[in-house]
């Protein structure tokens, strides 16, 4: 039985104003798979994440992105989220005065509404959240604080994965979630991500360094340079990168 295709990107060209960044990017991700996307700074990794989530300011000039049978680029960012696309931000945004619990409950209920499921009330929601928060070893008081306000760098990143745990996306895109994390936090985040792996969903892990992949074991590793994938392989490709550096791979 062939696995369901979650995301199919074909020959994507995109950029900011007149500057092209993605130059023929193609990638196919099936249900149950974890893909790692690696590359030097400026290779276009974060641009790809932003375009998939629907951030404003990028222009797609060619190519297609198919998500579960829909044209992803045709959807507004909130419609993508409701359809199960989740972006863990490289720089999570602070929203002063907005309670974290309130924020996340509103988000989950939007997603549930779009699926025709009943909305959760405050008590049901807290019940759900109690288990998830342990997964990320976050303090309970985080739920009473404003969204990301006054969080340490590590707390912000863990909070992203916590949100992912609550929202249960079909496609999770982790944009350099490892950057700025110390090794303990890295282990917790990776542990959380591993536990969230499901047969019907997929993860795209974007990272600059190999070290995250010691804890999140990908099924596929892709190396990106100058706006497209230049080499793909299994998890051993990440180790090869670590040993020989990007230069060696790019020269091949």
């Amino acid at each position, binding site marked *: 039985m062939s696995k369901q295709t979650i995301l199919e990107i074909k020959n994507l060209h995109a950029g900011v104003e007149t500057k092209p960044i993605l130059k023929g990017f193609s990638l196919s991700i099936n249900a149950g798979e974890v893909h790692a996307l690696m590359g030097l700074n400026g290779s276009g990794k974060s641009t790809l994440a932003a375009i998939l989530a629907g951030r*404003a*300011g990028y222009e797609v000039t060619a190519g297609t992105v198919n998500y579960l049978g829909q044209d992803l680029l045709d*959807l*507004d*960012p*909130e419609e993508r*989220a409701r359809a199960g696309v*989740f972006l863990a*931000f490289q720089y999570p945004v602070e929203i002063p005065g907005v309670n974290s619990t309130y924020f996340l409950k509103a988000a989950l209920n939007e997603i549930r509404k779009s699926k025709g499921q009943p909305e959760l009330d405050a008590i049901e929601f807290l019940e759900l959240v109690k288990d998830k928060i342990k997964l990320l070893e976050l303090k309970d008081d985080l739920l009473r604080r404003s969204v990301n306000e006054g969080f340490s760098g590590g707390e912000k990143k863990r909070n992203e994965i916590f949100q992912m745990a609550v929202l249960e996306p079909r496609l999770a895109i982790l944009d350099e979630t490892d950057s700025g994390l110390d090794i303990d936090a890295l282990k917790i985040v990776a542990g959380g991500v591993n536990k969230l792996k499901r047969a019907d969903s997929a993860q795209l892990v974007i990272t600059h360094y190999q070290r995250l992949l010691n804890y999140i074991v990908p099924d596929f590793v892709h190396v990106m340079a100058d706006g497209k994938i230049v080499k793909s392989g299994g998890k051993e490709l990440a180790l090869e990168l670590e040993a020989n550096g990007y230069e060696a791979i790019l020269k091949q």
Partner: protein
Amino acid sequence: MSTATDTIESLVKQEYKYGFVTDVESESTPPGLSEETIRHISAKKNEPAWLTDWRIKAFRYWQTMPEPTWQFVKYPKIDFQAISYFSQPKPKGDAPKSLDEVDPKLLETYEKLGIPLRERGRLAGVAVDAIFDSVSVGTTYREDLAKKGIIFCSFSEAVHAHPDLVKKYLGSVVPYTDNYYAALNSAVFTDGSFCYIPKGVRCPMELSTYFRINAAKSGQFERTLIIADDGGQVSYLEGCTAPMRDENQLHAAVVELVALESAEIKYSTVQNWYPGDENGVGGIYNFVTKRGLCKGKNSRITWTQVETGSAITWKYPSCILLGDGSKGEFYSVAVVNNMQQADTGTKMIHIGKNTKSTIVSKGISAGRGQNSYRGLVEIRKTAANSRNFSQCDSMLIGAKCGAHTFPYIEVKNTSSSVEHEASTSKIGEDQIFYCNSRGLSTQDAVNMIVNGFCKEVFKELPMEFAVEAQKLLGVSLEGSVG
């Protein structure tokens, strides 16, 4: 790409929910302002001579005053001769003896506004004085309050029933010489609410005045006087709406609060006058003088205001901290959208020793709105060991609006401290996108961000009002982000 790109900027027409007109026959004095007009109003209300004289003195003083020009709002010169200064629904037969006898059309109006006045269905725990154009339609729960010695009635009634109190305190906080619009109000005020809390009594329910302008070409000039005697406590709410008309209407009220020893007055306003349309046509000019006097030791006055309506909002609810150890607080959210303008803030005058004041002001500007915070903190020589903390935050939505801050600080002794914090932020595309990427629509995201920004003020509002205020904010900013 995504349509959320074009966010911020595209303005659509917002619905003003309270813009209907009540079809009731009204009796208005012809437009025009003279001593004769004032004597006419005074006679109509069967006022004692001292009050007529006071009005005339105020009018004569007003005539000598130049119109102020320092404010940061723009409007065409007001023709004071074109305004009708007295308008009331035509009485049918005898004056109604109870609320059940009031013209059903008027009761219906308040019901439509969410303020049922009839005994059945009236708001639990809130006593309401309903002001329609120039007169009070009725006051709920007055008998219950009277049992505790609390007086809550229309101003006109108080003039007759409690002349000593009115005579003693009228103009004691805002004298008619205070400013241009206070002088005008003193000359022509028609009605308003009066409240007296006796010694040691804690008012068991929220008191509220609901102002409704209905008649065209009229102005509303009401006067509110609240006195809390030693140890008395009261929480007072004020709400206001008006029909959508393409002319500007003037609302120039005066509110005076007096807190005696250890008394506490909390005055909350949710101001939702018709703001005009998206091109700035029509709407209310809300030029109001509100001031509280902390007369006794350890007294406390708190102003909380949520200003979302009016074409122009121009007012500075203030506190004179005369009693030693008294406290003044001002919490404000002022929103301008489309072509609205606001110049609002507070004055905290520290005179007594160990007095304290807190100012938290949140200004939100959207559309082509202009929002100014103007505040004075004055610490006099006598006010030893006094303290003030001010925080003024502005939020901009879009690129065509403005936020301005004019803080004035005068400190005349060395034992006091004054702190002022200010910030201006633009509602970030980043914040909106973050919310979008979690499944929230742009409108919901803006509401959430704005409500978060105003949280410190909302928590000062009485519960029922806080919910109302949050909803109101949502409606006011509808369409400010596309």
